């Protein structure tokens, strides 16, 4: 099955289709993680995007029932160098191709993904279209150009849960699978705002001793505070934080009242809620190998990241201080409120996929809640 990928700036790549047939559109980004495509596929932060995997061999480990970060696939297209239908892994139950088909995600393989990545690096992430029906380059480019820009899009509200729910599953273990800790051990009551939350964040919170209630993005602060939580968590999610004015307004109501921890989009929203600014990066960070320094300990952690926007720390002068720094591009990786028990990070301490170096941040959140009980 032939497939064509066209970018808004006119660059076109030809390849073969796999997964679902048809047309898919979205912002084309790349991810440099060499493992964990299943987690990438199920990460809600990829809503509205088509992901190019820079590593070339995909499908090798198939799909298993465990390695999911949400209950559906959010990205709209999957772009790889070579798809392997013959998977080999003791936990696998189906092929990547079947999984994409089942979930209606269009895949393209056999194209020069390195050329595509270099193009995105040099010209910036941009909209694109994959088609297995229309092979006319001009027509495809035109369609890609007609797509709305990611900047200014509130995608998070759309992927948030509809009503609050309680979460009790902890981190995965090779022998036991996902662990369900004794409820008595979950001593810290946390309300987690879902802007497209990855399940592993919830698992990390539970394993750190939190009793987690997940609430929709628009859940009123008053109701959350009425639950008398020990801390508030703001999750990751897709899109631009700026248009989410109501959410930001709602978030402000927690400031000074409860310890707060934010990740990725949650970190950016927090920046805005505290009166700062955010900006779109020319090309964000999408991978599992990015060095970050915790400025408190001067230690380097290798982190998983997936973001296209960033907090402008200068705009928060006097309110927040830089707590973590990205050592590759010196962008803001984490901040800490000068007076209040509030901190947040741009990267993904829950990893999945990625290294576990930053798991300690969940412990830090728990300590903070303990101190402010």
């Amino acid at each position, binding site marked *: 099955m032939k497939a064509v990928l066209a970018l808004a700036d006119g660059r076109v790549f030809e390849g073969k289709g796999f997964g679902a047939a048809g047309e898919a559109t979205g912002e084309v980004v790349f991810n440099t993680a060499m493992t964990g495509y299943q987690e990438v596929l199920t990460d809600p932060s990829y809503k509205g995007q088509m992901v190019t995997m820079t590593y070339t061999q995909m499908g090798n480990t198939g799909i298993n029932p465990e390695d999911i970060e949400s209950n559906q696939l959010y990205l709209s297209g999957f772009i790889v160098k070579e798809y392997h239908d013959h998977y080999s892994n003791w936990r696998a139950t189906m092929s990547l191709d079947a999984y994409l088909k089942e979930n209606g995600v269009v895949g393209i393989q056999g194209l020069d993904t390195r050329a595509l990545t270099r193009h995105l690096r040099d010209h910036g992430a941009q909209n694109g279209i994959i088609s297995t029906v229309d092979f006319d380059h001009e027509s495809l480019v035109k369609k890609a150009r007609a797509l709305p820009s990611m900047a200014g899009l509130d995608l998070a509200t759309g992927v948030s849960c509809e009503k609050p729910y309680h979460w009790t599953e902890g981190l995965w273990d090779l022998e036991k699978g996902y662990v369900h800790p004794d409820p008595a051990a979950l001593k810290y009551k946390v309300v987690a705002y879902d802007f497209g939350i990855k399940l592993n964040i919830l698992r990390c919170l539970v394993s750190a001793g939190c009793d987690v209630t997940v609430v929709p993005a628009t859940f009123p602060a008053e109701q959350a505070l009425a639950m008398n939580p020990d801390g508030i968590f703001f999750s990751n999610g897709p899109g631009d934080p700026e248009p989410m004015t109501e959410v930001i307004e709602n978030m402000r109501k927690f400031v000074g009242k409860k310890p707060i921890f934010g990740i990725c989009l949650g970190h950016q929203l927090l920046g805005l809620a505290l009166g700062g600014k955010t900006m779109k990066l020319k090309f964000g960070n999408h991978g599992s190998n990015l060095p970050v320094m915790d400025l408190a300990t001067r*230690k*380097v952690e*290798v982190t998983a990241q997936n973001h296209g926007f960033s907090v402008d720390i200068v705009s928060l002068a006097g309110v927040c201080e830089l707590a973590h720094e990205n050592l590759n591009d010196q962008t803001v990786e984490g901040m800490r409120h000068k007076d209040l028990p509030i901190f947040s990070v741009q990267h993904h301490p829950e990893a999945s996929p990625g290294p576990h170096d930053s798991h300690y941040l969940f412990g830090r959140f728990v300590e903070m809640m303990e101190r402010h009980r």
Partner: protein
Amino acid sequence: MPKRTDIHKILIIGAGPIIIGQACEFDYSGTQACKALKEEGFEVVLLNSNPATIMTDPDFADRTYIEPVTPEALEKIIEKERPDAVLPTLGGQTALNTAVAVAESGVLEKYGVELIGAKLPAIKMAEDRTLFKLAMERIGLEVPRSGFAHNYVEAMEVVKVVGFPAIIRPSFTLGGTGGGIAYNMEEYEKMVMAGIEASPTDEVLVEESVIGWKEYELEVMRDTVDNVVIICSIENFDPMGVHTGDSITVAPAQTLTDKEYQILRDASLKIIREIGVDTGGSNIQFGVNPRDGRLVVIEMNPRVSRSSALASKATGFPIAKIAAKLAVGYTLDEIRNDITRETPASFEPTIDYVVTKVPRFTFEKFPAADATLTTQMKSVGEVMAIGRTFKESLQKAIRSLEIGSSGFESRLFDITNETRRALTDKENALLRDKLRTPNCDRLWYVADALRSGKEIDEIYGITGIDPWFLHNIRQIVEKEEELKQVRMSASCHGEECGHKNGEMRDILREAKQYGFSDKFLGRLWSMTEEEVRQLRLSLGIKPVFKRVDTCAAEFVAYTPYLYSTYEDECEADVTNREKVIILGGGPNRIGQGIEFDYCCVHGVFGLTKDGFETIMVNCNPETVSTDYDTSDRLYFEPLTYEDVLSIVDVEKPVGVIVQFGGQTPLKLAVALEKAGVPIIGTSPDSIDRAEDRERFQEMLHKLGLRQPENGIARSFEEAEKAADRIGYPVVVRPSYVLGGRAMEIVYGVEDLRRYMHTAVQASPEHPILIDKFLDAAIEIDVDAISDGTEVVIGGIMEHIEEAGIHSGDSACSLPPYSISSELAAEIARQTRLMALELKVRGLMNVQYAIRDDIIYILEVNPRASRTVPFVSKATGRPLAQLAARVQAGKSLKELGVTEEIVPSYFSVKEAVFPFVKFPGVDTLLGPEMKSTGEVMGIDDDFAMAFAKAQLGAGVKLPLAGRVFISVRDADKKHIVTPAKKLYDNGFELLATRGTAAYLQEKGITVKVVNKVIEGRPHIVDSIKNGEIAMVINTTQGAQAVADSFSIRRETLMQNIAYFTTVAGAKAAVDGILAMQQRRLDVKPLQDHLGQDKEMNTGE
């Protein structure tokens, strides 16, 4: 944390000679370390006995000690140099063991020297099996069930717990020496005792077999503030049970989900922290049960390893260089990534290609060796290939090996003409055997199993090779079938073939993306490689070149480290400078190793001085030449006609140099020149004139020079006739070989018949050469350099062993220690004559034999030889560098090279052998090369230089004790003098009846001991009982050789000094006397060179 300022002078320990399990990767790591520390302003002192290394070039350290890598020599150097610190983690197991020895004996403490990189407790914890096991238990990690044994009784107890099959791992040995897998009690008893003997601490670990489990390796780096990063994950194609050095390995790991990979990563971090490796790289090996993911830790190397070199080349992350900087206090985030320039080294490289390493074996050199692959490493080299997919990289790796394979040739089918068919019972049995028992051909048999229609599950069941890999090979085999169909439906090619052009283009392009070589396609289509190439080019199918950049294109790469693939975008970004391509030597093997890489690297140095852009092509991940900052541009590619031409097409160099990389590039020279490639230096025609027997004879005749009586034969009848005319004994060999492959001394017609059978197989296209064997002649090696008008002798080397022993296996001395100056002058004259006649531009090597003051020419090679690095070290004149400049147009006069440098001191080169790795193999030397590496000893007198070379080679020359002598009749008169010297200097002598009688007759007191066939107690009993300090044993004739085999083998196993030639024994005895008279002294190369007035005029 910035660089430490409390240390100024650092001693780096090198790895010594190339042996199995420790090859040129440690020159790569050591060279990087020297460069990095010098760059940081430290004074660098280096100890390494291996002259063929770049790191021992006088420019790379401030004080270079080419001395034995032993605790004694190290102590002397410490005493003399008083370094602040010793860095032991970059010179392999040898360096680590030597450092441990001086740390434990209190030498480091005595002189206030600090171990940096890894401290003693960390080294001990990683290396000592008990401590390691306990450490793993502390951090909650499993190791295979196991127990230790130090004797028979303990061994029997342990195996009860462990069960069969049981893995035996001797403690503190290198490359798993003495280890193995026992499947039953009989094997176990034998192996466990051998293992205890092989271990320096008389200890073996007997371990639960995890054979068939998946095997992974992670390369880990840690800095002083405990930042830890993983550089690379590696998955073994061959499952557990095959030493990782003998396994095909793939980077990154292919069949792990992120959850499973992170388990390995977390475990690696815990391990490096628990073991407490301060800074630098470590390699950790894991076994993973493919059924449930259960993880066991196999082992950890608390140092830079062979896998580190591979990981460095596979990712572009220079592990050794960074390790050196971390050792002096830097943290990972303070060090820049050279490739991206903007980002720090505190990240984890991510790659967008697949790397495959395939080991290279030389079992053909040791027919008596067991070729089964086990936990003891047997390969002598390796190749690495980069492709965008596993299939592409695997096929590129196969053709990089230079074993006559250009893809998945079949062992059972005629792939050109046969379509799929069922196998006969006999073929099936063979196939199953080849799949079940790991061996160096298994990869090809896997393809045949698939061709025969076997299912993946069945092959997986037999081999344990992960189905993912098998599926990829199946795709290759299926593609092959498809490609055959194309030919079958089209008798011609190109546009007229019935296929539309576009269709043919798609098919061929896909085949190239699968990694098929032009040559293999030619085999499928009955076309020549060149015809396929032309067809391919006419269809517009050319490779593009992508960059290795550590970051999967996330950042701009500033280093042109390139590999080919068949895709859209080319990143070669060719410059418009004048450029020269140097073709490297490919995988290490016996006969072609680090010496040639040394020459290639020097070629780069020389051409850089003359302003050329230098381009290196090579596929050996262990080497300095494949370091991305050695040359201006690096192409990590197979050295085949197709791959080299693709690079030439893109780069359009003004010259290509083929004379540095040994036989590998030389074999391509004629075809490349024919294809219009500008080969510079000595012309391929001149090379042919020296290689072609008949043309060479004509030349010698014209010059009035003499060679041994000889003949040429294309059949047995011709050979018999020629040998009769010349007279036995004769030396027979195929033409065009390096390392004396299949060369033998033949004493009679029966011998000759047997030889012709095997040799013709060894080299079908080429005739057999027959020479008179000059018994007891002195052999001389000469390296010279010429610019076409001037010839300067680089060095004249006199061999210690007589002619008949391969020059690569023979010890030699520079300058000569016994020939007259008249003879030396005559040799120089003859060398000049030939160089000019052959119009040599660059290097030339000549081998001479002298008997009764008559000079015979044995061989002329107008190219860089194995001895070039040794000569360069001994004289301080960088021959290869000068040769490259001459080839690119400079005259010797311009370079200031006018006269031979004859040093006032002696340099002795000694060869090092792999016999200990191959049970059942005899240690006798002959015309076929068997050594893997070499060492050098330097001293003001010959005897001491020889002794040092022996010590460097690991030969324990005794200063007292009992010496056993048993020599053939022809040698008896020659052994009297050395025997008397030994006796007069306090040694006791023991001899077999005949030798004893002869010596007693000459008035020397000798005790008689039984030969093995004479009944017990015999000599082997004495050796086993530790009563013998040295053995001198020469033999002739098949029966005598067989009778004395057990003596030599036992001597080897006991690590007792032994000599199998009288010449070697004589030199050793003089060396022993020298050592008795004065203590061993150490002196850096810089001082040796400096003391000579005739300083290096090349620079």
